[in-house]
């Protein structure tokens, strides 16, 4: 089956995303869903190494290229606008569903090392 994908701005390069791969789980203390929650901060050092801070953990990772790039696509199956528009792209039948390329993923940020704890309040005097 052929799937037609549409680049958002008519042929220009879609935005480039990156995967974040963690060796471990993200869990919630209150056992609620993670949706919409702030996970942490992702920074890059001057050398380009990614640093992720989750809770009181700090993770150091690296950027690796994926063997095969991935596409992030959105499926659209609104019939009416598709029929109305009748772009140059849709030469064929089956205008029911279309896929919009949202982003292209070429890299992933891999955090596989053991996280280091961040100690918030260090006593001034020992």
């Amino acid at each position, binding site marked *: 089956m052929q799937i037609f994908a549409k680049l958002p701005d008519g042929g220009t390069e879609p935005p480039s995303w990156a995967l974040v791969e963690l*060796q471990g*789980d993200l*869990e919630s203390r209150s056992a609620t869903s993670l949706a919409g*929650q702030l996970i942490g901060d992702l920074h890059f050092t001057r050398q380009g190494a990614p640093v992720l801070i989750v809770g009181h953990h700090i993770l150091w990772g690296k950027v690796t290229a994926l063997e095969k790039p991935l596409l992030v696509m959105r499926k659209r199956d609104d019939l009416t606008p598709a029929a109305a528009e009748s772009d140059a792209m849709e030469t064929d039948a089956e205008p029911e569903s279309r896929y919009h390329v949202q982003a292209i993923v070429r890299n992933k940020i891999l955090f596989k090392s053991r996280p280091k704890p961040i100690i918030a309040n260090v006593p001034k005097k020992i």
Partner: protein
Amino acid sequence: MDYDYPPDAPDYDDLEDLLDELEQEKQLVIDDTAPKRTKLSAKRTPDDEHYDDLMERIRASRALPKAEQFSVVNGVERIPAPAAKRTVEISSRVPLTGAFQKLTFSDGSRYFLTVRSRQPQPLANPVSSRTSLLSRPLQELKDEAQRLEERRQRLLQERAVLQKLASWDTDAADSGVESEDETERSSLWVQRFQPRTYVELLSDETINRGLLHWLRLWDKAVFGRDVIIKPPKEEKKKPDGKFKPFVRKPAFEIVEELDSTNRPKQKVALLCGPPGLGKTTLAHVLARHAGYSVLEMNASDDRSVTAFRTALESATQMRPMLGADPRPNCLVIDEIDGAPAPAINHLVAALSAGSGDTSSNKKKKKKEGPAPIHRPVICICNDPYVPALRPLRQMALVMTFPPTTSERLASRLADICRRNGLKTDLGALLSLCEKTRNDIRSCLGFLQFVRSRQERLTLDQVQSSTVGQKDHHKSLFAAWQEIFNMPRPQRKHLVVSETDGSSRLSGDGTSLSERFNNIVSVVISCGEHEKLAQGLFENYLNVKIKDSTLQSVALGVDWLCFGDELNAELQHSQNYVLLPYQSYTGVAFHLLFATLQKTRPAFPQADSETRQRHSKLNNLLASMISEMSPRTRCFNGRGSLVKDVLPYLLQVAVPNLRPVSSQLHTPREEEELRRVLHLMVAYNLTYRQQRDAEGQYQYLLEPNMEELVYFGEERPQRSAPYTVKQLIAREIELEKMRRAEAALVGTDDRRGRGARETAPPPAPERAETGAPAAEPTGPAPAAVPNHLRQLQAKPLAERAVADDNVLPRDFFGRVIQPKPQKETPADDEAPDSGHLLRTDVWYHFKEGYNNAVRRTVRVQDLA
């Protein structure tokens, strides 16, 4: 021997000869450092190899007195400088550096002697340097000392004469006996008839020769004479290969080698042997014979380390200057086995010092350790195997004295008796010798005692006397040997005494009464009755027992019991009246079990073994009882536990289980297992895996009550297999844990139990986060079993509350107002990071590699 300058006094002719030679070689450096002693010895035996060196030394020695002659002419002192030793260098020009001495001769020629001080001379010849140290010339002092000595002798003689006149002597018999000096009459015979020369020595000839030879090995170091070293005589034995001639192993071995300082390898001789064999006499005679003056140090002297050191140093590094006997010392240390170990260690250190090092570092060493010894040292002891003597024994020439032969001693005694007018016969003397076991000292003492009362000595008197029976110690082994061995008939020449009641048999030591008396004396001289009895008890069954009814065995055991009772009573009541009776156990055993066959008694060990085992088992039992549950303990006394409970308990506590997995057990088996578990936990028994000698693993009881309950090799017939024991061991651990938990919960209240059930055990989570703030603290932590509990930080809130109540005050008692927010940048970050850390999401890291398991995940599965 003269250590002074050579007698050929130099004159101008010699010097002119010397100067002629000097002109040939413009400058001549002469080394005068070598001691003159070696020069003298070299003169005697000129060696072709060192001929040139020798000539130079001779020239130097001639030149030196010439230089000194000036000072003799000019002043009182012979040598101006305090040290008489220099390195002399002669040149025709003024030396560039250092002091010098001008020499002008009749023909106007002038030479210069450079003068340098030099290292002090080695100790081997300490005397030659002494001349200049004295304020008066040596000869003068010697003469004066001689005069004093003569005067003292004269005074002594006068006093002796006075004493003789004053003493009132009634014994008329003494008057015509000897023409010797009257003073000697009162002296001891032992001293009077001491051997004074080598030929008079009574001791074993090989020993005499060996010791003398060893002393001669010192000649090189002490006198500077060359030592004749015997070549090893191994090749003599070779020719006959068929049978080896019987070569007696020598009692000692002299290492015929000299070390770097010309001293023999064995720096000390150790003479050992029973008392009265003439060890001390031998040492004295031989040392005198070899040209030494003897210095003796014995047990009556101070034996502290410092005293020992001073004595040692004064004896081996100095020599008497005065008196008629200016000979080098030989130190004889008598009864060294009684000396304290530090003193002996010091001696060993002194002996080993300076053996390997050269003269250059000898000076350094002198400060650290004792100075090396340059004179022979002879040590004398009775027992060479005293622990303190061990280091000395290794470096010493050990000579064990064989006893003097009775015949030789008896003939000498006969000679002495004849000279003192004591009438006796050889038989009596021989029996005296045997009775004293050839102790010369006690023989002579006895003879002198007899002589002081009468003029005849008969065999009777010897037999009835108690001479020589003291101070003689029989070892335990010797005593056992004597008891278990029938004495062999000895020579018959000992005539039967008339007064002795046992004279019906010939006195060859085999008659009943003789055996009886012998054993009594042996046992008494041994003294260790308890050990002796133990040895008898362990060895008497090894003897061939002749009577088939074992009457003798029963009797022997009776006697042992009697001895034991006696001993117990003795120790208990301290009633030493009973002491003599103890020796008759030995006699009874001798009469019951003695055989002609040689037996080799073994040292008794059963007693100590049993004692050890007893204490070990007691410990086992104590450890078991201490851990037993109180409910069981209160019904089990120590005695009843061992006798009544444990033997059966071990049988009962073996479940009848099939060796299968615990899931497959029938309910009956489970019931039985539970019963055994309860039993073993109650008695604090368990199984512990152990590896035996063959490397096999097996489960043993812990504490090992089988050892306590069963004798020897006997083991229970019924024993659980390995797997069952393993199962039981594991179940016991679990059961104990369960009980501990139950006990903990039991002590807590009901609320605690409830809390324990509701409290979530988030153990892994806690381990990962380690954040105590987010920890849900259970209401009753005591409810958690001990092994599951974890350390927790103290809650800080309580502290804060407490701080609210008690306001902080400063030194003057004013309340300190809490400061407003601190403005330091570090504190600025703190709330920030605290905020950051307070997020709900946390990261749970998973250990391992993320590519460990790869699985295809389809998108449709994810949705």
